């Protein structure tokens, strides 16, 4: 490549408005699709009826928020949301564990194959995940066909008491392999000399993993943990929507699914907006909290 002498800029470069005017339409898209909906929060303070202009709807203040907090649904929805989130936080140890064990595998080829197999579920849509679990766990699916040999069977997809752990299992199936990648990369980045030195000192492989690999993964784990706190009341909608059915509905309904059901199914727009806004505000507060915590613990922020 020809080298061009890069002259040291003496004065501050002149503003180039061409750049700005090219960026403008793209930023207009950001504004239209991300910021204008934020103004829609106004909806939760007025009594909006479908077909009526929003601005002429009567102001009702915090009525819909009061309704939410006093509603009989509230504690149920919050319990569901928190239960799922607690399960996810508990499962945060699975990706690093997966990465450490994968690293202990001897065959390189086999390791690669396992990684490919485990990350695949991340790339199928939630509808497909549902279809897969339906196929495997339905009354005459493979799991029950095997259980029948032992004289038992179970309605996995419509069992009220199993909803939390079963959905968490589904989530783990789709996500653990993918989330492990970041830890696999972190392991690859650990200084190999540390292991060599430890081996010279007679440390067993388990000891090496425990005293070198685990501490090496801790910073990443901490970030994941804090991010999980930040999204404690926001655990996604699609999964619960596809697995929803009349029998487990009361257990699987999270804040987001509740917003969807109230808003787009019952067309209770103002109330649903209030629910959504409550969720967003709590999320932002938690995110800042996690960010502040990160600053204190790690000395750097996560966002």
């Amino acid at each position: 490549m020809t080298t061009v002498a890069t002259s040291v800029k003496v004065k501050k470069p002149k503003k180039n408005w061409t750049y700005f005017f090219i960026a403008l339409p793209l930023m207009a898209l950001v504004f239209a699709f991300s910021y204008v909906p934020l103004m829609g929060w106004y909806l939760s303070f007025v009594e909006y009826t479908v077909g009526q202009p929003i601005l002429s709807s009567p102001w009702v203040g915090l009525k819909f928020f009061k309704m939410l907090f006093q509603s009989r649904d509230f504690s149920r929805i919050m319990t569901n949301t928190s239960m799922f989130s607690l399960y996810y936080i508990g499962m945060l140890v699975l990706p690093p564990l997966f990465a450490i064990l994968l690293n202990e595998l001897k065959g390189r080829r086999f390791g690669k194959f396992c990684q490919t197999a485990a990350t695949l579920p991340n790339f199928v849509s939630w509808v497909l995940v549902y279809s897969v679990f339906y196929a495997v766990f339905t009354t005459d699916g493979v799991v029950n066909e095997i259980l029948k040999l032992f004289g038992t069977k179970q309605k996995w997809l419509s069992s009220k008491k199993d909803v939390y752990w079963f959905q968490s299992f589904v989530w783990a199936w789709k996500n653990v392999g993918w989330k492990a990648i970041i830890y696999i990369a972190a392991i690859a980045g650990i200084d190999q000399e540390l292991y060599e030195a430890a081996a010279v000192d007679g440390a067993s492989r388990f000891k090496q993993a425990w005293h070198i690999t685990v501490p090496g993964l801790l910073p990443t784990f901490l970030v994941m943990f804090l991010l999980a706190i930040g999204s404690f009341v926001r655990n996604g909608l699609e999964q619960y929507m596809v697995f929803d059915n009349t029998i487990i509905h009361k257990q699987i309904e999270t804040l987001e699914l509740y917003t969807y059901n109230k808003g787009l199914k019952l067309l209770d727009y103002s109330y649903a907006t209030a629910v959504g806004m409550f969720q967003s505000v709590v999320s932002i507060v938690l995110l800042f909290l996690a960010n502040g915590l990160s600053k204190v613990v790690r000395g750097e922020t996560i966002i």
Partner: protein
Amino acid sequence: MIVGRESPTRKIFNVANVLLFILIDIMCLYPLWYIFIQSFSDGARAAHALVLPIDFTLENYRVILERKDIGHALFISVARTVSGTTLTVLGCMMLGYLFTKQNMPFRKFMYRMLTITMYVGGGLIPTYLVYKSYGINNTFWVYILPCIVDAYYVILIKTYVESLPASVEESAMLDGAGVFTIFTRIILPMSLPIIATIAIYASVGQWNAWFDNHIYNINSKDLETLQYLLYKYMNEAQSITQEIKEKNPGMRIKVTPRGVRMTITMITTIPVLCIYPFLQRYLIKGLLIGAVKG
């Protein structure tokens, strides 16, 4: 690689570890194989097919592919994947490139405005109503326009472009090349690795999307995507099976709701399954660049 001697406990651990990963592989891959063999089995005895198809048949595929809605949904899915991915790559590349320009007016302000969108959103209902007021509900545009600028992709691109040598661009500038010439002739060709990564992310996202179809285009039959059709079929397998039976009297095999579900699942998954192993490294690359930054 961790170094150390092979103790007996270590050997036991190794064997157990390999077994554990075989189990994980089975858990991840067998369900797809199970659906695969189900879709090739005669519905009458399909429930007993666990390893290989029972009474091998292509009838499930024939009756499903004969339905007009599948062909059309496939067309819509391909159309949105191709056009959506192209526009997302171009939009995000352009914006990411512009954000590397220190002398762009309002650069910091716009960059902050963009990154905030990763954390704050209007939520489901306001978004729905706003889209509706734009008139993009029940149009193809709702699949494309909201996805053109993605904060995460823009950050990835900006980081990448910043790492490119500035000299080539500077010499082109001295030669009097305009912004678009530099962008298409210099920046795009030099950014192929990051373009590949983002194109794959965007296309997987487009291919898998069904929720926007369900929310915004629920009343537009001619805009249904393959994923959404699968969602519908999952919920309406009974009535669709009935339709198929009425259309094909005296069929040799039994088409069941379950067979219908399995077959359309397979049709929807196959494209992802075929390209995934080849694209995996690009996907991982994208994840890791983002992790360094985040």
